[in-house]
């Protein structure tokens, strides 16, 4: 089912929680809404579910306008951050609840509960009550309750955030597989950019109630639409340094240091004076000797991370993070040469904060 939000707006008092949001989740799509806390993503999800009424705009489910339809008639399934399992019911009764409510006949309900439980490995827990389950088990019951009927849309509100790190990774993979098998349009809300990158067909980045960018994870990562998206995605985040364009010197001057740029980049910056330059840590190279287009810097700190190594270097007042191979051998305050991959350089307008 296609889910479409049109100019959706919600105010909390005088604060605009969601501001004229246009968004579409395609048939069977895994759409992740990503943003920091307070960006309006949970409010958006609650409006889709019908738990909050929008002040303006419309919500379309296929060719049906459901903006004012109560939650029970939208036929969506939601997984809450707290799981919201019914504590007075057993696991089996919890999973069967949406079917009982819809008066699905008993044999059919039992069959579907069995299927959902099998899919999530809950067969042995059916008689238990939620309080006798671990966090991961509760999470799976919540998912089973969502998939037990074939809803129009799945809504998920940070469903992995209460799990510990190891379990979160496992469940993340299982969730992706599950969504693929069921092929139900899914809107998934999270503040975790790693979840967004790994799960989504498309990512909608939200900040201050406004849609910043809607694109595939790889495009959002490589071509962020603005400085917010550039800084929010990626771990460690993108290096952003502000400098002055100097066409005569064929580069950008940052703190008296000249960063030489190739002709193509200079053409893109034609007519501008101040720009913010962005480069991902994996596109920064470090060398012990001077190479063409490199800028001198000093090692500030080295952070080995097993398969790779993060090196923070200082150039005057600026710091840059480089992601280099794990076998690099650098020491505090060592002099190095820093070079950025000119193909992967991004530029932003410091005034409008938009990508150039």
């Amino acid at each position, binding site marked *: 089912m296609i889910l479409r939000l049109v100019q959706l707006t919600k105010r909390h008092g005088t604060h605009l929680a969601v501001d004229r949001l246009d968004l579409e989740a395609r048939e069977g799509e895994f759409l992740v809404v990503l943003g920091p806390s307070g960006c309006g993503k949970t409010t958006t999800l609650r409006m889709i*579910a*019908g*738990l909050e009424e929008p002040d303006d705009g419309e919500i379309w489910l296929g060719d049906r306008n459901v903006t004012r339809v*109560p*939650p*029970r008639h*939208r036929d*969506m*399934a*939601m997984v*809450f951050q*707290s*799981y*919201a*399992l*019914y*504590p*007075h019911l057993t696991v089996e009764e919890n999973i069967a*609840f*949406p079917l009982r*409510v*819809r008066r699905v006949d008993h044999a059919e309900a039992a069959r579907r509960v069995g299927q959902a439980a099998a899919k999530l490995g809950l067969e042995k827990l059916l008689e238990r*009550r*939620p*309080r*006798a*389950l671990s*966090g991961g088990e*509760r999470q799976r019951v919540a998912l089973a*309750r969502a998939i037990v009927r074939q809803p129009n849309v799945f*809504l998920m509100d940070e469903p992995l955030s*209460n799990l510990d790190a190891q379990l979160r990774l496992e469940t993340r993979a299982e969730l992706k597989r599950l969504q693929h098998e069921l092929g139900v349009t899914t809107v998934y809300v999270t503040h975790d950019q790693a979840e967004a990158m790994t799960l989504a067909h498309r990512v909608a980045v939200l900040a201050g109630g406004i849609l910043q960018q809607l694109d595939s994870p790889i495009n959002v990562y490589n071509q962020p639409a603005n400085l917010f998206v550039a800084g929010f995605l990626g771990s460690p985040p993108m290096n952003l340094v502000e400098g002055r364009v100097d066409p005569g010197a064929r580069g950008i001057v940052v703190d008296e240091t000249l960063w030489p740029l190739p002709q193509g980049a200079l053409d893109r910056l034609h007519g501008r004076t101040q720009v913010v330059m962005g480069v991902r840590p994996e596109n920064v190279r470090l060398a012990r000797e001077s190479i063409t287009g490199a800028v001198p810097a000093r090692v500030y700190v080295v952070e080995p991370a097993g398969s790779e190594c993060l090196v923070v270097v200082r150039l005057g007042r600026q710091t840059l993070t480089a992601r280099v191979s794990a076998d690099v051998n650098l020491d505090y305050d060592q002099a190095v040469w820093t070079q950025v991959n000119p193909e992967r350089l991004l530029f932003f307008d410091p005034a409008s904060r938009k990508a150039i």
Partner: protein
Amino acid sequence: MKATAAAALLLLLAVLAALLPVYWLATISLKQPVDQFAVPPVWIRFTPTLEHFREILFARPFLTYVWNSVVVAGGSTLLALLLGAPAAYGLARFRLPHELHERLSFWILSTRMFPPIISIVPLFLMMNRLDLLNTRASLVLIYTAFNLPLVVWMMRGFFEEVPVELEEAAMVDGLNRVQALVRVVLPLTAPGLAATAVFCLIVAWNEFLFALVLTQTDRVMTLPVGIAAQVTQFEIRWGAMSAAGVLAMIPILIFAFAVQRYLVRGLSMGAVKG
């Protein structure tokens, strides 16, 4: 270890202090009048008699008092819960403009802040006007009014403990708000409802002052008034009063034991990540 022993001793003392009057009441109900006020007191070795129970049960309209008390206490408790619980739910779940939900809650509580006796004359006049003097209905109405604020305050707390997400989940799963209230919220607040009901019942069962003023005949008298009526112009029938007191405790005890299971709290634990 030492602290546990001290605590146990303290608890024992507390239990003794609470049970001693009950023991005294129960023994007096079984004693011959000659033993009742013997000095030194006869604690155990007396010849028991069921004479007082026989007198109470057969010679006086005791069973009428019991029935009146059951009707009045049961009726007012039911009515107070029926009116108070929805009010409490509304105050727990909905935010009204200008903090009205808080103000209303306090206003409701404030009706219990004056001593009840000051309202007795106006209430007597009102009941007279309504032609409800010397009826059980007048007591049901008054006890309901007095229990309502406590029902609202107790139940509001219990409702607030139920996570909102549970209701929201139920609504997404296909229920409307009233159905969600009945199928999800009420089962979880059953212990609270039971505790509140016990509280209301005890208050109504024991109430004396209004019952004394508003009822005059055996036909509508409740137990406390009926028992007090054993103090007559000529004698105080201690044995009969004690026997009646013992019998009056029984229904409340039965009810409290019946709902004991629900009084054990904690059913809502584990709903949200615990």
